[in-house]
């Protein structure tokens, strides 16, 4: 099930939508002030809510259909085999479209090592109609998530159907080599996706924070604060923009090294897969790869954001709720400070628990790797491992 993978990015899409929405609301209020919730005001709020959901749905839709996902289809897919297996297949240049579920199509790239989750044409009609109906815009968000998850499930079913399953020992050595290379490629690509995702997510958080800072600045220098604050607003905006740009550059420098390393691994493995009969040593490459496997597995598990999106969302909600309760009700009732602090403490506790667990897992995987290597040396001794 790949809901987790989708939700880890969707959470950031939601955050960005919220940040854009927050920035838009006071701007609308500032440009077109209204008193209380008059009809006009209610219209603005409805417009804003609709716009928010449309932005969220649009961003989520892009996250769903744009990225390529690594998958191991063993390079043995062909149209006739798929048709015989009951799949609807369309060939498109270097890729093939396979309908893997009622609403989902997997666009599988040449080399059968990556796919894109696309909506089927019947789903497209629903996707066009949903946002057109007032109040159902949010449905697009949920529908694209459903299509995405169905596509992953379909591709996984297709992969096991086409590859066949059986104990590793029973397969021929050459097949095992190809299989190992394919699996290593998937791991390297996954690690690359995680590193790229992590870079983008951090960038989005940075931009969101900048937007929130700008909204605060706008509120402080807005029309209710009197006139003559335009200069302050301009200087503040420049400082926020400069700090954001600097932060993005620093982030880029920090993340590019990790991304380049994973990219190099993925390219090296792909080259070896294409050059199986060449002079390069597959087993040598695979032995180089083995020490990387624990790290790739760790990259997969790493990060509170990607590991447990549900828990992450809960932590953020606890922080936001705690802060809001303290800010809104604290001045009128001291108990609000206690409740708010309690919620923030709970969020902090959950965050620390997740971090400690991640560190323990990493330590365990390192110890596992040392044990595996000792086992391998034992295998090379006469009669070893039998």
């Amino acid at each position, binding site marked *: 099930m790949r809901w987790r993978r989708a939700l880890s990015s969707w959470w950031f899409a939601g955050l960005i939508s919220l940040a854009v929405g927050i920035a838009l609301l006071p701007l609308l209020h500032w440009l077109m002030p209204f008193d209380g919730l008059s009809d006009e005001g209610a219209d603005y709020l409805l417009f804003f809510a609709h716009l928010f959901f449309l932005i969220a749905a649009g961003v989520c839709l892009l996250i769903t259909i744009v990225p390529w996902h690594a998958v191991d289809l063993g390079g043995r897919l062909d149209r006739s085999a798929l048709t015989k297996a009951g799949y609807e297949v369309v060939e498109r240049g270097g890729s093939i479209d396979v309908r893997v579920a009622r609403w989902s199509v997997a666009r599988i790239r040449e080399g059968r090592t990556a796919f894109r989750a696309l909506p089927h044409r019947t789903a497209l009609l629903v996707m066009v109609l949903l946002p057109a109906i007032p109040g159902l815009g949010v449905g697009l968000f949920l529908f694209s998530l459903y299509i995405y998850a169905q596509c992953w499930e379909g591709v996984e079913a297709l992969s096991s159907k086409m590859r066949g399953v059986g104990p590793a020992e029973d397969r021929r050595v050459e097949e095992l080599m190809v299989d190992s290379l394919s699996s290593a490629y998937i791991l390297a690509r996954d690690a690359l996706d995680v590193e790229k995702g992590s870079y983008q997510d951090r960038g989005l958080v940075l931009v969101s924070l900048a937007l929130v800072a700008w909204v605060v600045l706008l509120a402080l220098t807005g029309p209710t604060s009197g006139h003559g604050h335009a200069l302050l607003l301009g200087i503040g905006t420049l400082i926020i923009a400069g700090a954001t740009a600097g932060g993005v550059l620093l982030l880029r420098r920090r993340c590019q090294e990790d991304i380049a390393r994973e990219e190099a691994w993925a390219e090296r493995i792909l080259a070896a897969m294409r050059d199986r009969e060449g002079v390069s040593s597959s087993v040598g490459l695979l*032995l180089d790869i083995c020490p990387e496997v624990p790290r790739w597995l760790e990259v997969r598990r790493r990060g509170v954001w990607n590991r447990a999106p549900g828990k992450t969302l809960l932590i953020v909600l606890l922080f936001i709720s705690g802060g809001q309760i303290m800010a809104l009700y604290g001045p009128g009732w001291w108990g609000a400070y206690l409740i708010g602090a309690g919620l923030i403490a709970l969020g902090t506790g959950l965050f620390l628990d997740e971090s400690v667990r991640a560190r323990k897992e990493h330590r365990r995987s390192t110890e596992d790797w040392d044990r595996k290597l000792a086992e*391998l040396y034992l295998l*090379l001794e006469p009669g070893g491992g039998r």
Partner: protein
Amino acid sequence: MERPDLYVVARVLERLWREPSPILRTRLQVAVGTNYDVFSRYLDWMTERGLTALIEEDGHQKVVLTDGGREAYRRLVVWINEVVHGRR
């Protein structure tokens, strides 16, 4: 040799696995990509453990993979496969 470099051992095994007939010692050394002294030490170590065998053919010394070597290579490949799949 206390603990040989697995990378070199694996390359020797792989190269011999791919060869349908005995291979010249020097050709194997070039294919493995190590200097002759290091290669000789590894070959001796592998021959001692019954992974490879040396035979004389047409006045040249050639290397061949033994059944034990074939089994070791197969186990190595299975092991790698299981590690890559995270099953070990």
